[in-house]
């Protein structure tokens, strides 16, 4: 049961005219896993999810969910898979409960089972109070929670979520993440999340796949990806010292293997190098009479992994030079005209 493959794709490709949205995608997700599909907007994530649901026909290649061919047996697949689209929509004139009931009917649920499940799910997503209000009065976060209840109406064994965390406030986000984790650990459902919000993904995903321009350029556990980067010689050290003066920067530059030094507004140093600098750094600081306030070896976090992989893809391909900004990196990259 442990390693049963639930979802797999073989050389899945989708072209729209000249543009290749997804190219030779080979993916496999095992039961009970939370898999994160990461990539900037327009990387082909949504196209991939639509192909998995049989809503878009692949140009070539195949996808299977629990042994059903996603293109040829879409009905069977859609019985198993719950899909939460980004910006999920409901019928505004109906109440939340009525919307769920309609989904139940479309899935051919028995009326009593349907009502029972609606009650349970509304409770679970914390929407019982608002259940009999029209959906047009709901806030975005409420819609999202209703969306999750809607997905669970058919009791799916696989859930595909497209940008589930987009536009949700921090508190709502925390609840949502807890809920998603619960779906995986308690219910044993397999979850595929596509997103460009790295921080959230990092919290919930067992494995991630990084998607750039329709290609899966890296895939694996977050720690493994981080280690892989270290092996390729990327070390990032963040530290703060007092006094933070220019002299230190010069001295750091003299160290072997340093490729880049920058300082942010708080005076924090950010040093990238080819090897672990820590053994040299401490003596250097002591020598200069600096007091170390903060030290952090980076590299294992997703933001960095993502950035490095993205840069690598850019070097190989025709991608423009990457932006060296720490926050909101992906959003900016996506908006940049190619």
């Amino acid at each position, binding site marked *: 049961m442990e390693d049963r493959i639930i979802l797999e794709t073989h050389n899945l490709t989708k072209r729209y005219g000249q543009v290749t949205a997804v190219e030779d995608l080979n993916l496999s997700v095992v039961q009970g896993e939370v898999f994160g599909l990461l990539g900037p907007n327009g990387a082909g994530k949504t196209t991939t999810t639509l192909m998995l649901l049989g809503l878009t026909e692949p140009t070539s290649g195949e996808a299977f969910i629990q042994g059903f061919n996603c293109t040829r047996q879409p009905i069977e697949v859609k019985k198993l898979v719950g899909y939460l689209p980004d910006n999920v*929509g409901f019928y505004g004139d109906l109440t939340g409960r009525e919307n769920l009931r309609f989904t139940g009917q479309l899935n051919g649920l028995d009326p009593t089972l349907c009502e029972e499940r609606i009650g349970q799910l509304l409770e679970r997503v914390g929407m019982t109070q608002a259940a009999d209000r029209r959906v047009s009065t709901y806030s975005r976060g409420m819609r999202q929670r209703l969306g999750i209840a809607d997905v669970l109406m058919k009791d799916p064994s696989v859930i595909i979520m497209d940008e589930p965390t987009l536009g949700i406030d921090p508190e709502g986000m925390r609840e949502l993440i807890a809920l998603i984790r619960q779906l995986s650990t308690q219910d044993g459902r397999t979850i595929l999340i596509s997103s460009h919000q790295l921080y959230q993904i990092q919290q919930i995903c067992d494995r991630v796949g990084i998607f750039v321009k329709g290609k899966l350029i890296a895939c694996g556990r977050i720690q493994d990806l981080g280690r892989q980067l270290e092996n390729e010689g990327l070390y990032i050290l963040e530290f703060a010292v007092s006094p933070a003066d220019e002299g230190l920067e010069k001295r750091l530059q003299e160290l072997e293997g340093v490729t880049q030094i920058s300082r942010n507004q708080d005076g924090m140093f950010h040093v990238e190098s080819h090897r672990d600098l820590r053994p040299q750094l401490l003596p250097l600081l002591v020598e200069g009479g600096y007091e170390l306030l903060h030290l952090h070896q980076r590299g294992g976090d997703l933001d960095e992994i993502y950035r490095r992989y993205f840069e690598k893809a850019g070097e190989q391909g025709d991608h423009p030079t990457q932006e060296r900004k720490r926050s909101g990196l992906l959003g900016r990259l996506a908006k940049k005209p190619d």
Partner: protein
Amino acid sequence: MQKSLIEREAHSEPHRGGLVALYRKELADHLDSKRFFLILLLLFFATTASLGGALSNLREVAEESTTFLFLKMFTTGSSTIYSFATFLNFLGPLAGITLGFDAISSERSQGTLNRLAAQPIYRDSIIKAKFLAGAAALFLIVACLGAYVSAVGLLMAGIHPSLEEVLRIIAFLMIAWVYICFWLALAIFFSVICRHAATAALACISIWLFLSLFMSLVAAGIANTLFPLEGIQGLMNMESNYNLELGLNRLSPYYLFSEASTTILNPNVRSIGVVTMSQTVGAIAGPLSLGQSLLLVWPHLVVLVALVIVAFAVSYICFMRQEIRA
């Protein structure tokens, strides 16, 4: 896990369930909507106005002939007000357009289309259910109006229909329904290809106005250009001119329905189109039976049904080939 699988098997009922659930929801949406109420109200007022005209003129009509007097309720107006049949011919399309112009585009803009398509139903059941629900709502409208006119005829005028008249009224209402369904199918087609509901509505309304108001002018213009009626040559051209104009007019469902409804509701109409003197020699003046009236407009009925099928088929194909994503 095993249990839920068995449960799922038990409930993996035939896909027809999806169509029925969608149809029910769509129909409920229509009957619940303000626009359905408004269009019903509009048609109700138009019918009332035409009935007023009919009742005031009925005495004069009855003096001429008393046969098929009940049908006169449907075809008589006054000098200022159109008859019920004319109103239905002109305003009926508006009902079809109202119920269909945002069928698909509203799902798209609400973001419910991809959620709907992700349920275990065939994609075509979405558009089929929309058309069927719209057609059912239109059937209700047409049947209500027909019943209303008949009831007023019975109560206010005190005339009772013969069996033949009842059958003719039913035939007329069915034809009206098919005619309005064509406009529903056309509106659904535009709702598939247009991103915005407003564009679809405008496209439908412009086609409706063109076919209802301007088609006859265009037809006359083309006929007069190709076959001028001036001079000696004009006499020779007369028949061709008339036939061309009639042919062009018959491209419009508006004209088809008006010919069909006139023939069905008036048994004294013996021919549509040109009849030469030699053809009428020896003909005995008298009403046609229902079967003969239907035979006379059979091509019209076939074309009307075909138009519905073609309009729906085109929108069906467009919808099935479209990308689901917004």
